[in-house]
């Protein structure tokens, strides 16, 4: 009995944390749009949010940073490349937010896991399984994006 209560509490806590993460990511887009309108251009917002994010992450990385770099240089290069690509993504996202409603931009930008899935399937030795569920989910995402675009054109 106690064990099952403990497991339920763990599961509900996990769900709460997941919803909390969703609120953070969703809320950040709204906050970014608000700041772009009030204080500075998108590049400046992106720059300082990254800066303070890095500062806040430093305690989590700590001493492991130096030891963590003792890996093949190719892998460090891949990480740095991902950072460069992500920079372009952040810039695109913030410029998009400066030009359109959050309710239009956020769902489209949030389709990035699908991009990861497709690219990983194509380039990473087909790591990802393509199941009926994945195909159905992909179709739903495509339809959903089309409907959002149509809705933004109508509004």
């Amino acid at each position, binding site marked *: 009995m106690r064990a099952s209560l403990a497991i339920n509490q763990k599961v509900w806590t996990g769900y709460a944390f*997941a919803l*909390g*993460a*969703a*609120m953070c*990511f*969703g*809320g*950040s*887009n*709204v*906050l970014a749009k608000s*700041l772009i309108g009030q204080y*500075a*251009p998108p590049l*400046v917002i*992106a720059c300082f949010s990254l800066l303070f*994010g*890095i500062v*806040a*992450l430093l305690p*989590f990385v700590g001493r492991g*940073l130096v030891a*963590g*770099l003792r890996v093949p240089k190719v*892998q*460090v290069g891949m990480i740095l490349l*991902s950072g*460069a*690509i*992500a*920079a372009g993504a952040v*810039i*695109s*996202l913030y*410029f998009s937010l400066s030009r359109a409603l*959050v*309710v239009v*931009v956020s*769902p*489209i*930008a*949030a*389709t*990035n*896991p699908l*991009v*990861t899935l497709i*690219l*990983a399937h194509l380039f*990473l030795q087909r790591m*990802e*399984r393509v*199941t009926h569920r*994945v195909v159905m989910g992909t179709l*739903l*995402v495509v*339809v*959903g994006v089309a409907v959002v675009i*149509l809705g933004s054109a109508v509004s």
Partner: protein
Amino acid sequence: MAAILLAFLAALGFGSAAVFVRVGLQQMKSPVGAFLSLVASFVLIAALALILNLDAILALPLIAFLWFILLGLLNYPLGRVLTFASVSLVGASRATPLIASAPLFAAIFALTFLGERPNILIGMGTMTIIGGLALVVSEGGSGARQSGN
């Protein structure tokens, strides 16, 4: 239309960055990898911001920095820590569909704080996207956004 193209570009960028991260994290611990990735992003964006928007940076009021701190906290440590914590408690296949509901919260917050009023098509499209993502990520094939955000 430009905004939509930029949003697609953002999705493409975040999605492909995650693929490179997967390759890079084969022997590197993920907090270190995430940190390095952010530093690389910051160096590029800071260089562009200093070149193109130096006047705007110098004119920033102090209160803006408090908001930037909040934005940085939401995007990076808080969102990531909650993601990792939820995945460790309930597993990726249960956690990531919930994390993929971020656009729903974005819509709620936009309605509440920005006064945005999406029409029924945008609302239906958002829910369809969230449903589709939930199906895709629950396979465990890919995680929810990191957000470069």
